[in-house]
């Protein structure tokens, strides 16, 4: 690197999405398994779900996007636990139906994979510490590159490169752009704007036609956050039924912003 060349790479934005002391839902789950000395090959769904939820309450989420990952995991665990409430064979305490068992197996497998990654990370850390004791030369002492003539150069190479690029551009069709999944904040604003004109909204109408999973998750989190802020109320009259979203009456108490 020439010393006088300005740094063109200056992207170090040191933002981390750490929540509590855990680097994501797997990290938390693995931590719970470790502290309980649980064999990953037999995940006790009931215990682990309760502990996971308890931890979730203790964690302060400053980042809604990160919270999403934790909530998805929580939903998975609760779903598994709900399946245990009606075991196919009442004599067994932790028996899941086929689907539940498959889900549990996947969870276990992913936890095991994550545990391996953590182990490897620790190995790398030890390696790094060892290497930190060794010092190389701060700069090489080789003759600078510009004293070395480049070989086999011909302007036709440059010409050919530019031709190739132009041809590629002609061939390339316009890109189809996927609509961006909205952020939770954007979705919250949208909901509030819609509620200015309508008394109530259906959750399903907010999610959009394609029903992409990311959309549903973002919308649900936005709704939950608005409920928490006291800006809206929700009603669901039956299980898996439509969720109705209403403006919180007496809106003034939440501040009229």
């Amino acid at each position, binding site marked *: 690197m020439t010393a006088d060349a300005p740094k063109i790479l200056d992207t170090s934005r040191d933002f981390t999405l750490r929540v509590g002391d855990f680097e994501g839902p797997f990290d938390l789950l693995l931590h719970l398994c470790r502290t309980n000395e649980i064999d990953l090959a037999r995940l006790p769904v009931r215990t682990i779900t309760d502990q996971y939820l308890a931890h979730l309450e203790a964690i302060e989420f400053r980042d809604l996007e990160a919270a999403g990952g934790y909530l998805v995991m929580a939903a998975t665990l609760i779903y598994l636990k709900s399946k245990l409430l009606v075991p196919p064979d009442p004599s067994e305490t932790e028996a899941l139906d086929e689907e539940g068992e498959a889900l549990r197996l996947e969870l276990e497998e992913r936890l095991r994979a994550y545990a391996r990654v953590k182990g490897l990370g620790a190995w790398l850390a030890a390696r790094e510490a060892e*290497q930190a004791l060794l010092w190389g030369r701060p700069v090489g002492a080789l003759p600078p590159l510009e004293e070395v003539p480049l070989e086999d150069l011909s302007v036709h190479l440059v010409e050919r490169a530019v031709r190739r690029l132009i041809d590629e551009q002609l061939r390339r069709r316009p890109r189809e752009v996927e609509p961006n999944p909205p952020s939770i904040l954007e979705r919250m604003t949208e909901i509030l704007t819609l509620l200015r004109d309508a008394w109530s909204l259906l959750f399903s109408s907010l999610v959009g036609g394609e029903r992409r999973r990311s959309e549903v998750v973002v919308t649900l989190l936005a709704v939950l956050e608005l409920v928490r802020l006291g800006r809206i109320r929700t009603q669901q009259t039956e299980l898996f039924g439509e969720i109705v979203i209403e403006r919180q009456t007496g809106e003034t108490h939440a501040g009229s912003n």
Partner: protein
Amino acid sequence: MPAPIDILEALLFASDTPLEPERIREVLELPGVAAARELVEALRSRYADRGLQIVEVGGGYRMVTRPELQPWLVRLTRSRTKQRLSRPALETLAIVAYKQPVSRPEVDAIRGVNSEAVLESLLERRLIRIPGRKDAPGRPYLFETTREFLVAFGLRDLGDLPKVEGELLVPELAVVAEHGEAEAQQDPGPGGADVPAGS
């Protein structure tokens, strides 16, 4: 003419990257790579029990200080402390090392969290690079480790990594993966745009 061993000493001293046996052979016009390795061994014994040593990393040889001299080197440069990698960075690096080339959605899926910021900082440190894009929806960037990675961790090659039992699985249809993929599709964005493509 200077002795080949002295020339080798100067070459190792001057080179800022590990010196492959083949390049030693070429520069010194030795009959073969074996002769190059022999010469390195001879130089090694010259440096036995001294302040410097010759290590094999990243497919070549490098001259470095002995580990026990670290305290004095720290004293010399006072402020210079090496930036250690964070735990998330090390874990992400482990995934890239074992599954390379690997895309961000895959890394995200294994870690269960968004790895964009971590990958970016690893790119910045030149520990990983982008060999291209994956032929998958959204054409996400692929990542692989660099030679600097081998050097930084004192590895001769990727075979020096510990064996893992079982595989690091990439969940096929995991929720996280799908979410990540969706994100990847909306253009590289600020992060994606700034990643160096290893040339």
